[in-house]
């Protein structure tokens, strides 16, 4: 089964889509695709079949998102916690993933036609090596596409992601690229696996569970969160529309809250810069009072040099990430 199901919306679906699009639409939607196993139980089929149908549903949902003008989708495919499942089930999921990523490579034309960029987010070193290589091929081959983005969280938990981001910043400090005072919310954002994406506007969890299960905890702090009781393999276009409607009802209040948060961030950054500059001037001035003009100039120049440091660090981080994938694909890759 292909990654993006071919097909167009029916007339009624198209009309509904057009009505919805008259209002604010989410640009980035995240899905916790829960309910595959319960679906399998309900239909009296094997668990593996439930997961396969779950993948088919993902392909269909991606098509709907494209039709609705939603160009970025992030999905929770496999959590680090899922390694606790039986060896049989984990093995089955790894095989399914391998099959789908291999299939992806056959669909280069289709992916290029839709301009799909696939990213896989998580601690990939926890996965079997051959799967890592398939993933690397898929990511590298679609890297340049920029019409729509599919982020697959695999071997992922939010806490691991945040801890890893802190680790990367510490690495930056070790390398002398940044100072500890450069650490900020914005910089942490750049160090997350999701750094190339804006925060999701809408997070949908299916199957009726009402928790986040360690998924995008940082990124969804000001997102609209919709819990739907439908099992993932049964998800329909109308369920998606219902979620979008809820997003639209919450839009104004959430935008307001985001604005308040952004203002708070700006204040934090300014305060941090002020205190760094005050310390610097104290060292240079040897206790003499500093005139406001001098302080203002120092503040501006400090902010500029901080920005420069941060950009250099982000560049180095990106290079480190690209090298990871390129290394996996090189014929001389050491096991």
């Amino acid at each position, binding site marked *: 089964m292909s990654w993006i199901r071919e097909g167009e919306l029916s007339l009624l679906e198209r009309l509904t889509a057009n009505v919805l699009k008259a*209002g604010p639409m989410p640009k980035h939607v995240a899905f916790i695709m829960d309910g595959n196993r319960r679906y399998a139980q309900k239909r009296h089929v094997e668990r593996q079949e439930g997961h396969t149908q779950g993948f088919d549903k993902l392909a269909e949902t991606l098509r709907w998102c494209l039709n609705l003008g939603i160009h970025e989708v992030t999905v929770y495919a496999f959590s680090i916690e899922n390694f606790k499942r039986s060896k049989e089930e984990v093995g089955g999921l790894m095989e399914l993933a391998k099959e789908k990523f291999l299939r992806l490579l056959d669909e280069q034309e289709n992916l290029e036609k839709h301009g799909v960029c696939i990213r896989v987010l998580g601690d990939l070193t926890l996965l079997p090596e051959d799967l890592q290589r398939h993933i690397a091929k898929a990511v590298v081959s679609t890297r340049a596409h920029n019409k729509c983005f599919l982020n697959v969280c695999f071997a992922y938990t*939010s806490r691991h992601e945040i801890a890893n981001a802190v680790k990367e910043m510490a690495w930056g400090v070790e390398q002398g690229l940044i100072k500890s005072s450069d650490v900020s919310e914005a910089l942490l954002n750049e160090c997350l696996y999701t750094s190339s994406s804006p925060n999701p506007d809408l997070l949908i969890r299916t199957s009726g569970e009402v928790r986040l299960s360690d998924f995008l905890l940082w990124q969804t702090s000001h997102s609209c969160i919709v819990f739907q009781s439908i099992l993932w393999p049964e998800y329909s276009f109308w369920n998606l529309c219902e979620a979008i409607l809820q997003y639209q009802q919450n839009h104004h209040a959430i935008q307001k809250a985001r604005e308040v948060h952004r203002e708070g961030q700006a204040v934090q950054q300014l305060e941090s810069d002020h205190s760094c500059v005050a310390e610097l001037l104290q060292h240079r001035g040897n206790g003499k009072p500093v005139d406001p003009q001098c302080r203002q100039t120092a503040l501006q120049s400090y902010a500029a040099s901080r920005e420069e440091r941060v950009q250099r660090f982000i560049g180095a981080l990106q290079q480190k990430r690209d090298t990871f994938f390129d290394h996996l694909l090189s014929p001389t890759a050491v096991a």
Partner: protein
Amino acid sequence: MALLYELVWRLLHCLLQLQRAAAAWIRGRVWRRGGRLCRRAALRLPGALGFSTQKKTAKPRRVRWVADGKALEKLPLHVGLLVAEEEQQYTDIANLVVWCMAVGISYVSVYDNEGVFRRNNSRLMEEIMKQQQELLGSESCKYSLEFLNNGTDPHALLCQTVVKVLSPDDGKLRIVQAAQQLCKAVEKKERTSKDIDVTVLDSLLRESKNVPDPDLVLKFGPVDSTLGFLPWHIRLTEFISLPSHKDVSYEDFLSALRRYASCEQRVGK
């Protein structure tokens, strides 16, 4: 054509808003009617049984609340009260905290995304003490409340509830501060970047060592978002939404706890 779609869209959202407003109005009427009936019955009952009014009306409620707590299959250890509404009613929040206490919940966090409760911490604390007296009456001395400020460790005692008032600064900002601390340690060569993992970060973010992650968050208000509430700590938290904290009833609170008791956590398995 685009104009037509826009008109339909506006109509749709108008209808949804009307539906929401109607539901809120009905809820208000039912509560007020139900409340009036209950209060009348509560006042008449002790008289009918030959007891004096004041002292004894408090006792049946508390006993019922304790029994309700014990009857639940599982009780959350830590409940978060997330107020996603523009106006804050201190008495209603105080009621919720006291009910949590009576039912046997050990930790309660109160949060709003503009830090209003945090700024008016003492007013909230006073209100909670007042409601504790009013709702638990003579039995209130059996329950002790501890208000947790940053850095203090709660003392685990029987019949004790620890209350903490949170703001957005306790969320992402706290994580950034922990990150800065770790990076400073790396700068001073006290640590290496390889030392940093989930456990290290978690221990820094758990400044009050005994306080567990929230098991349950009761979200009040129409906004479907966590609005910055403790991002690190809510990885397994159940979220139950209630329309409003204004005039919230004990029955609403209990039914949310019952819903929590029926959920199954597989933790990845």
